[in-house]
Structure formats: C-alpha cells, structure tokens
C-alpha cells in the first residue's frame, strides 16, 4: 500500500527494480540452490561418516577382504567371528582373547559408578545454585567453569602420586573418583539450568503443605526434570566409558582394566587383528552413538547452555 503513494518517479523505478531482483532471486534460488545445498550436505555427511562406515564394514569382513586392493566397501560374505573373538568367545581362529568380555565388565562398573556418584553430588549442588543466593556462589560457578577445562593429563600426575600414597592405586575406585571429577562440573552447570525452569511457586506450595526442602526436591522437582537427569547421567556414563588416561595410569593389573586399554590387545608385534579390533571398537562406540541419537536435543542444549551462554 505504501509503495502506491510514492510520488517520485525515480523512487518508483528503484522500488520496482528491487522487487524484480527479489522475485528473480526467489525464482532462481529454490531449484538450483536447494539441489546444490542437498549435494553439498550429502557429500559432507558421506565423507564424515566414512571412517565409521569403514570401522563397521571392516569388522564384518572375512580376513581375505580386509587386505584386498582395491578395498572392499561392503563385505561379500559378512562374518561375525570377529565379534565373538572380541568378547573372548571361542572361534576357529588361533588367537584367543579370553579377557575380551572382562574389559567391558570393568568399563561398565567404572562408568555406572561414575554416573551414580556424579548425579548424587551434582543434584544438591545444582539445586542450591539455582534456588539460593549465598556468599561464594559466583566464585563456585567460576570454579566450575574453569574446572571443566582442566586437562586429564594435568590431574593424572598428582593424582597418581596421591593414589599411590593412599593405596588407591590399582583399584577401580581411583578411576571412578577421577572420572567423576571430570564429569561433575559440567553436570552441575547443566542441571542448574534445568532447575531454573521449574517455577518457585511449585516448591513453595510443597513447603507450605509441610514437606521439607529435601522432600520437595525428591518427590516434586526431580521427577519434573527427569529428561535432564537422564541426559546428565548418560553424559557422565560416557565420560567414564571411554576414558583413557586415568585407566592407563592407575590400573596396571589386566583384570582391572577397561575397554580403552583392552583395545590394544589386538595389536600384535608382527600382526594386528584389524577385524577383531574394529569389532571391539564398534562395540565400544555403540553406546555413544545410540545415546546421541536418542538424546541429541538434550545434549545440544546442554552444550550450548553450558559453554556459550
């Protein structure tokens, strides 16, 4: 309507030219532009996924196809002996990795304990940081932000010395404690933002009805943020599941070692069992990929709220 009232002829022409430009832009863009974007997205995704595809494909190949030139993309006769071998089940092969399943068991113990310990410590801390104002709150938050950036290598040297002194060397507990220290700061930051989304009124109602704060937290608030609790729990689990440097340094006994150390048993002096190693790696990667597919939204909002905002 406004354009109709423009008196100046030059203004009119300029406006007309601009509109033409816009129209041709929209006419040109969709067809060619969308096809181009699709192609670019497809190529980028394909290149990115190639290593993972190669891992799974190799794990299923018969020995003859692993070293084939040109490389075989999809195994012609998939075999799962590599998976049996990776978890220590008997196969027709000369190599026997009897400790395969043990590594997974150890990793599970370490990861599950880390998850429980992280949640137990993070929930009350995050709750306090979201509900109360108190002296030292800002410093504590700042400490958390810096703490989640500390490198594992920086911790592993003093912790090794301390664990030796307190006889925690060669125990699962040593790795669980160290892994929890890695997961906890991030867990608190994420849970704090989810507590913010629960209205205070809900809590006050509970308090007026005579419940204690802990009861309100346990029976009213935690069920409401269970999606975040699951995400934080899975995140802590995964932090410990594949953790490498603490396990490498604190666990010298093979029967205590997790998957991140166990994977090296397939590298031999003269020969590396690539298919078994890739089968083992696939099994290690599965929980991480599955978790990401199901919890993508929570993980992404957690990362963005925890690090950029």
């Amino acid at each position, binding site marked *: 309507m406004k354009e109709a009232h423009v008196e100046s002829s030059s203004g009119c022409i300029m406006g007309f030219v601009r509109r033409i430009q816009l129209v041709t832009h929209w006419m040109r863009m969709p067809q060619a532009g969308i096809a181009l974007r699709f192609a670019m997205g497809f190529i980028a995704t394909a290149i990115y996924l190639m290593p993972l595809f190669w891992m799974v494909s190799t794990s299923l190949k018969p020995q003859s196809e692993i070293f084939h030139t040109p490389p075989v993309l999809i195994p012609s006769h998939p075999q799962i002996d590599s998976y049996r071998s990776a978890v220590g089940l008997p196969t027709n092969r000369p190599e026997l990795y009897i400790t395969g399943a043990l590594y997974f068991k150890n990793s599970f113990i370490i990861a599950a304990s880390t998850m429980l310990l992280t949640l137990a410590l993070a929930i009350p801390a995050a709750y306090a940081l979201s509900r109360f104002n108190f002296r030292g709150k800002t410093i504590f938050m700042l400490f958390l932000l810096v703490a989640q950036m500390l490198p594992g290598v920086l911790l592993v*040297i003093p912790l090794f*010395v301390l664990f030796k*002194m307190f006889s925690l060397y060669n125990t699962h507990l040593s790795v669980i404690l160290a892994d929890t220290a890695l997961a906890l700061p991030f867990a608190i930051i994420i849970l704090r933002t989810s507590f913010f989304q629960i209205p205070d009124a809900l809590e006050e109602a509970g308090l007026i009805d005579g419940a204690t704060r802990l009861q309100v937290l346990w029976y009213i608030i935690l069920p409401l943020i269970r999606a975040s609790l699951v995400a934080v729990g899975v995140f802590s689990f995964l932090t410990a599941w594949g953790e490498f*440097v603490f396990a490498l340094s604190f666990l010298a006994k093979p029967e205590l070692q997790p998957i991140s150390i166990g*994977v090296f048993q397939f590298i031999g002096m003269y020969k590396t069992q690539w298919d078994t190693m*890739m089968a083992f790696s696939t099994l290690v990667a599965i929980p991480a*990929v599955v978790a990401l597919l199901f919890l993508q939204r929570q993980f992404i909002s957690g990362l963005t709220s925890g690090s950029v905002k």
Partner: protein
Amino acid sequence: MAFSSIGNDIKDIKASFFKGKLTPYFYILPSGLFLFVVLGFPILYSVFMSFQKYTLETLVSRQTQFIGFKNYFDVLGDPAFATALQHSLVFTIASIFFQFTIGLGLAILFSKAFPLSNMMRGLLLSGWQIPSVVTGTLFLFLFNLDYGLINFVLTSLHIIAEPIGWIVQSDTALPAVIIANVWLGIPFNLILLSAGVMGLPEDVYEAATVDGANGLQKLIYITIPLLKSTILAVLMLGFIYTLRVFDLIWIITKGGPGSATEVLPTFAYRLSFINFNFGRSAAVSVIMLLILLGGAILYLRAITEEERL
C-alpha cells in the same frame, strides 16, 4: 576496616545459621569438598611438586627436597620442551582452523532448508561422543601404509603417487593426528556455531540480498560480525580443548616417531610415567596450566560480553 568486615561476616554467618541461611552450604558441601579433594588439591599439589626434587625414590621415601625453580629452568632449557611447545601450537592452530572453518560452513549450510537436512545434521553429530580411543584405533587403521583407506583414496585420485606411511614417517605424522583431531572436533564446532547461526535475524540477509550482496560478502559483513562473541567463545573453547589433547595422540603415535608428534601433554606424561621425573613433569603441567588459564580468562570475557549484549 578489615577487622570490622570480618566481624560482620561472623555476625552474618551466626545470623544465617539461625535463620536457616546456611542451608545452601549443606547442598554445596558434598560437591565442593569432592572437587577440592580430587581436583583442586591435586592441582595445588602439582604446583608444590614442581618446586621439589620429586622422583620415583621420593614416592617410596616420601622425603621431598625443595629446589626452587630448578625444574622450571631445566624444562625451559630442554630443547625437547621447545619442540613439544611448537608441536602443540601447530597442532592446536591447524586443528582449530580446519574444525572451525568446516564447522562454520556446515552450520551455515544446515541453517537453510533442503531435503533431509535435519537427518544429515544428526548424522554429522553421530561421532561426537565416541571415545577418542575408538577414533584413535580407527585412524590407526585408516592411515595404514599398505591397506589404509586414506592412501587408497589419495593414490586413486592421483593426489599422491605412492602410498604414504602417514604415522611412521616423521614429516607426515603431525598432519595425520591433526586430520584425526579435526574429524573428532567437527560435531562440537557444528553444534555451537549452529546455535549462533540459527539465532541470526533473517531480515538483515534479505536486505543485503536486495542490495545485491553476494554470499561471501554476507559472510564477511553480516554473519561474522554478528556472531563475533559466539565465534570468540568457540575459538577459545577449541583452544583449551585442543591444547590438552592427549589420548588421541598417545593412541595413534605415542608422540612419535621420534618426537614428531610430541605435544605438551604427551611430554608431561612421558616425564612422569616413563622417566619418573615427577617434579619436572609437574613444572611442564604448571606451564600448561598457565597457558590454559590465559585461554580460560579470554573465554570467560567472551561469554560475559555476550550476556551483556
């Protein structure tokens, strides 16, 4: 002044106790104590160790000997430290450059609608939580001299004439671990930059299109300036997370061949767990910590700036 303020503090705390204002501290205490014991104290202990003659014997006798800055002078005078520092800088800058460029390109691509874009973006994130031990063994296989996929692709495309012994050759080992690390870091950059790109106002781009700006001009004059604080935060986080990378390098090359991929974390680890010179290793850790703290301060400044906007 100081005394009266301490007096007031004590009064405050007393008053708080009776009014239930100490409650927040009960919630914070478990996490605070845990993080102090497993994170804060080890860091302090590292600083302490860096001023001592601290070797394997010390671990047994528990008799430390103060030697002032000798560890620092030894480290700074060691050509191996200079090499590790240089590799760390090359590794970090090159990794960030490619991760960030690819991440930003993909974030812009996926901010526009095209078929299957959501699915592709989801798949591009699938490797995000995969343990670096899996990435490590996977790239160990991909970079293999005789039957690695990367050599096959590059020779087929005639980019290289002969297969390269990527990780066994000293001039290609560092590029190889950088490539593996770039792959590992793409999801992280994509997520954080996507969040920023999605929040950009669309009308600015429409106006620019009308004014005849091309894609590159829009990127340089609109996207990058508007995303300034997000970009700064992503770069600083990238710097912190990349400088501390240990597991990926240790798994693929152990810092070798020779010292071709020795970075500060692997150098510190080697000093402790192979040479058993914990004091000198702690000195390297403290130097690394100072560099990281510099990065953390810049990062915190970047995110607080964003909050103000």
